[in-house]
């Protein structure tokens, strides 16, 4: 078990190396002049004419062979210098770290109801196979699965913002933002809801929740479908097992057998999918954050990608690869808790 987890961990440097090569290759497809823009502190810098541009290309070594430039770049990264993000106008690592709590907050708030809903709906659908609850759940999930996130998100804005004015976009209202940025408000974690509670400020807490509601509902609905399907399939399979029939035969009530004997074992395949789903959400609530103007990693990544802000894109790529590996590791470690058989193998 531990061996397997270690091998997974060893994959990380290889993945990161290949990833860095890939992004660097993309970056090198631009001309030295275009790449120079990343080094220029302000646009005026590039207005010095051909001569000064040539001199700067020389100075930053943008005409050097591929491997020398790559070495210089990777050397910076290894010493913890992820580079400067033009989009954020701050170092990439600072930008990523300041945005991470916002995304984590959103993802956790959406993932928990998503998981509970998937377990509930999936096991219900399996138990009532081909009867009306199964059909209703199937339609509900396949609709959510087919809904483009941006269409669903815009619908949410149309109803809950434009018409009802309940859930505004952004992370905080103007007044709340003023309070949060003031020196009286201590930023413990960077997650608005938690910080508000720790500061004992319920008004801020309420405001943060109001802004989180719409993206949370969107993410939950769009992501619940695939997990529900896995849960249903796996529930169907466990319900067919001999030990379930034995439990029924010895006279246990149907509900006890279904919920305690079958559902528990049906959770196993869900754990894998849920871990993947969580990892993908952590690295890619790009559209949701963009629509609701929620300043998190996803929105940042989308901006940097559209601007070809390569240092930031690579930083985000590194972050995502680490999240994937860590999530896989967590799933591997949770597995023996769910299924004692795994430990003995």
């Amino acid at each position, binding site marked *: 078990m531990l061996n397997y987890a270690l091998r997974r961990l060893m994959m990380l440097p290889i993945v990161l190396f*290949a990833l860095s090569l890939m992004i660097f290759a993309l970056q090198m497809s631009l001309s030295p002049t275009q790449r120079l823009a990343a080094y220029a502190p302000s646009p005026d810098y590039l207005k010095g004419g051909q001569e000064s541009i040539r001199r700067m290309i020389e100075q930053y070594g943008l005409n050097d062979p591929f491997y020398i430039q790559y070495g210089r770049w990777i050397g910076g990264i290894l010493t913890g210098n992820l580079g400067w993000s033009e989009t954020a106008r701050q170092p990439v690592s600072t930008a990523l770290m300041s945005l991470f709590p916002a995304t984590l907050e959103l993802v956790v708030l959406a993932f928990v109801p998503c998981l509970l809903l998937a377990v509930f709906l999936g096991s219900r659908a399996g138990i009532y196979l*081909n009867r009306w609850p199964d059909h209703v759940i199937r*339609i509900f999930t*396949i609709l959510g699965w087919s809904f483009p996130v941006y269409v669903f998100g815009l619908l949410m804005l149309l109803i809950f913002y434009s018409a009802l004015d309940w859930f505004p976009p952004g992370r905080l209202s103007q007044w709340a933002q003023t309070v949060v940025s003031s020196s009286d408000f201590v930023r413990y974690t960077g997650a608005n809801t938690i910080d508000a509670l720790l500061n004992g400020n319920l008004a801020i807490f309420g405001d943060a929740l109001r802004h989180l509601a719409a993206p949370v509902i969107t993410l939950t609905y769009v992501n619940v479908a695939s997990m529900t399907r896995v849960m249903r399939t796996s529930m169907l399979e466990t319900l067919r097992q001999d030990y379930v029939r034995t439990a029924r035969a010895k006279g246990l009530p149907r509900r006890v057998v279904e919920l305690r004997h079958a559902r528990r074992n049906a959770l196993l395949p869900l754990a894998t999918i849920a871990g993947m789903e969580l990892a993908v959400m952590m690295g890619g609530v*790009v559209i949701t954050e963009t*629509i609701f103007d929620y300043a998190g990693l996803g929105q940042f*990544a989308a901006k940097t*990608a559209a601007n070809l802000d390569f240092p930031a894109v690579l930083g*985000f790529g590194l972050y995502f690869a680490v999240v994937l*590996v860590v999530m896989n590791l967590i799933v591997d470690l949770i597995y023996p808790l769910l299924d004692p058989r795994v430990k003995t193998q």
Partner: protein
Amino acid sequence: MKFLRYLARNPVSLFGVVILLAFVLIAVFAPVLAPPQSFQLSPYDTPRAGFLATPQPPSPEAVFGTTQGQYDIFYGVVWGTRTAFKIGLGVVAISVLIGTVVGAVAAYYGGVIEEVLMRIVDVFMAVPFLIAAMVLTALLGKGIVPITIALTTFGWMSYARIVRSEILRIREMDYIHAARSYGASDLRLIVLHILPNAMFPVLVLATMATGSMVLSASALSFLGVGTEEGYADWGQFIAYSRNWIVGQPGNPFQFWYTLAFPGAAVFLFVLSWNLVGDALRDMLDPRHAH
């Protein structure tokens, strides 16, 4: 035949097939439904009625209304169907091809080659899909060819995995041993005997992926790196609606048509592919049989 019998028993799946056929008809008869004007350079350039900034509601001239900048929504939705089919089918066909070749080569040669190929698959899997596709599209420029290239580059991996594992599974089956004992070469075995049987799971995956690739493509347009301004593409039209979600005071749904028509088009298109893919999986996977 089996498919038709299945459809008769599953009205929801039948619904999916009907919508999909409707989209095919819309795509085929686009020049009849929304005839391009003679001055248009390409039928995919949506004609505009003036340059007024505010969207205009449905009227006899523009039955679905117009977007900001007066692009005709009906025209965009109709010709956008062709765009959706081109991107969806194009991306999936090329991805299946690449994935099949990589998966088959990995399974056939095994050893170091297999190890290297599958690690490359792992690396591509560790890339954030949408962001990577955005970067590549931004580098390659606007249009459906860059979109197709970008989505293919980061979307072929799951086919390679499935093809490889299917080949490894089928290779050990009796009829393959029988064919080998007749003296069939390895290549002949793979291409004629193994691959055709490995294609069912690929077909299911490809059907479902067609919908989600169209989703991703319109997401790219929505995020601003997809097609050119005014190109008949659903994502582009939904992006136009973004500034008009909030109506005037007292009339919150004033600009509903800017979102409703292109939004419904993407939704129904993806829904139909998902329903068809779901039906195929149900039929082909014995575990789902009831």
